[in-house]
């Protein structure tokens, strides 16, 4: 091979993306009164920088548990996991991720602005900087003008948007979202899905998203991880390559339906172990 060919070959190689989350043979067994529960069993997964990874599966398949292990809210009982090259505990100490729960979990005695600045207060960031970042975060989720309102004055969808703004306010590169739109109606959900996608395209964050809605998973993700329960494991990993500026109309295209079909097959395969 001449030098010219080698250089050409190197130029054609895709730039290797940094692995943000690296999971190797991860297991989590809960010891309960009526025997062990295998919440996660031998999970292997890599989440690369800039990925939007959805975890989908029936209840009890371990998708929320997996997200919580990444967030260091649960500890694995076997295998290895590293976030940005360090343990989940160290990643949590460095505040490497923002977490969005199923419920908004806003503190009811704080205004929306002060809720969004809560993590910034804990990180002891100065007041002017806090206000500036809160403004930016609220602009990203289109909640400007609601800074002084209290959570009870906002609808469920708006509260969840405020919760997302809070997770974005301290500019962590990793966003962990646990069925954030599960409690909302379909119209609000569609709108928030679009908003989240635009946000992801603009900020280039790495997102791990748990859902039990197949259209949502296929619409939002660059990678879909299909899981099944008892024991919790990964059945299938599907890569998608929809354009980043896609709209909701894409949900009626054949490519979309094909991937949705593949997800559905994976879910059915996982479920058949029950019967």
């Amino acid at each position, binding site marked *: 091979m001449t030098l010219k060919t080698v250089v050409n070959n190197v130029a054609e190689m895709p730039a290797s993306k940094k692995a943000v989350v690296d999971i190797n043979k991860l297991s989590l067994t809960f010891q309960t009164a009526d025997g062990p529960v295998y919440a996660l069993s031998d999970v292997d997964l890599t989440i690369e920088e800039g990925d939007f990874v959805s975890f989908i599966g029936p209840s009890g398949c371990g998708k929320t548990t997996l997200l919580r292990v990444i967030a260091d809210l649960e500890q694995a009982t076997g295998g290895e996991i590293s976030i940005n090259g360090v343990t989940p505990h160290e990643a949590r100490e460095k505040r490497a991720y923002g977490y969005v729960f199923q419920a908004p*979990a806003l503190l009811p*005695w704080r205004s929306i602005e002060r809720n969004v600045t809560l993590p910034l207060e804990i990180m002891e960031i100065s007041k002017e900087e806090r206000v500036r970042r809160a403004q930016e975060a609220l602009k990203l989720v289109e909640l400007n003008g609601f800074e002084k309102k209290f*959570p009870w004055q906002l609808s469920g969808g708006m509260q969840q948007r405020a919760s997302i703004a809070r997770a974005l306010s301290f500019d962590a590169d990793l966003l962990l979202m646990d069925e954030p739109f599960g409690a909302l109606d379909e119209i609000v959900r569609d709108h928030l899905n679009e908003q989240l996608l635009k946000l992801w395209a603009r900020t280039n964050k790495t997102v791990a998203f748990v859902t039990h809605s197949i259209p949502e998973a296929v619409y939002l993700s660059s990678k879909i991880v299909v899981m099944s329960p008892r024991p919790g494991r990964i059945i299938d990993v599907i890569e998608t390559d929809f354009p980043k500026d896609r709209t909701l109309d894409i949900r009626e295209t054949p490519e979309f339906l094909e991937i949705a079909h593949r997800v559905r097959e994976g879910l059915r395969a996982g479920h058949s172990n029950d019967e």
Partner: protein
Amino acid sequence: MMSGQTGPVCVVLIALLVLWYVGAVFMNAPTQIDRYERADQAWTTGQLIEDTLAQDRPILPAPHQVAVEMYKTIFAIKITSKRSLVYHSWVTLSSTLLGFGIGTLLGVLLAVGIVHVMTLEKSLMPWVISSQTIPILAIAPMIIVVLGAIGIKGLVPKAVISTYLCFFPVTISMVKGLRSPQVIQLDLMRTYNASKWQTFWQLRLPSAMPYLFASLKVAIAISLVGAIVGELPTGAQAGLGARLLAGSYYGQTIQIWSALLTAAFVAAILVVIVGWCERRVLARMGVKS
């Protein structure tokens, strides 16, 4: 909001007054009839009713008798006089407030310790609860005598009794309040790697405010009871409890009742003040009004 409550409260008050008048007539009737018979006087029911409501030392004073006595000893007398109910109220109130302040502080500190330190919960809680099983009427004289023996007299022993009574509801409520945050909120603080102090200040303490104010209303009323009980053993020098005692020594039932009603009014005013503070604080914390 008080609107809508004044009507029913007035109706109940009027009903109570009617019952009181009827009760006064019935309870004072035997002694009155006795008096008629000893003076060989003929009497009618109308006269009986009139006389039972105007006795010098009735068994049950009529409301207007108590009202007149209260007016005489609150408004128509110098505050510095030893017979002024304002002076006596202040004596009782000062030890109530001191005891309330120390008791609340002690209750909050105990609760913070119990919630954050495992060993404190197991070692302190049983003692906190059993401290309240001892009757206060038994312990009050002991506290006064012991403290008097080391030279502490007057305000402080009574405040100690008030503290003893009111730290308990504050402790119990605060422990519940500090433990009231939901798991999801505690998880949220974990994801920010918040320290225990930050979690306490930002989450636990604000969550505990409604519980704290509920217990403060109980605490301030019971603190007043403690102050009055503390005045009984010392031989009736000053304070509403002292007036109660003096009245019972000399058979001055009207005096007893006026001191009693004054104590009730003072307690009501204190609870209303705590309620007002509660509304202000909770409004600032964005609670739906």
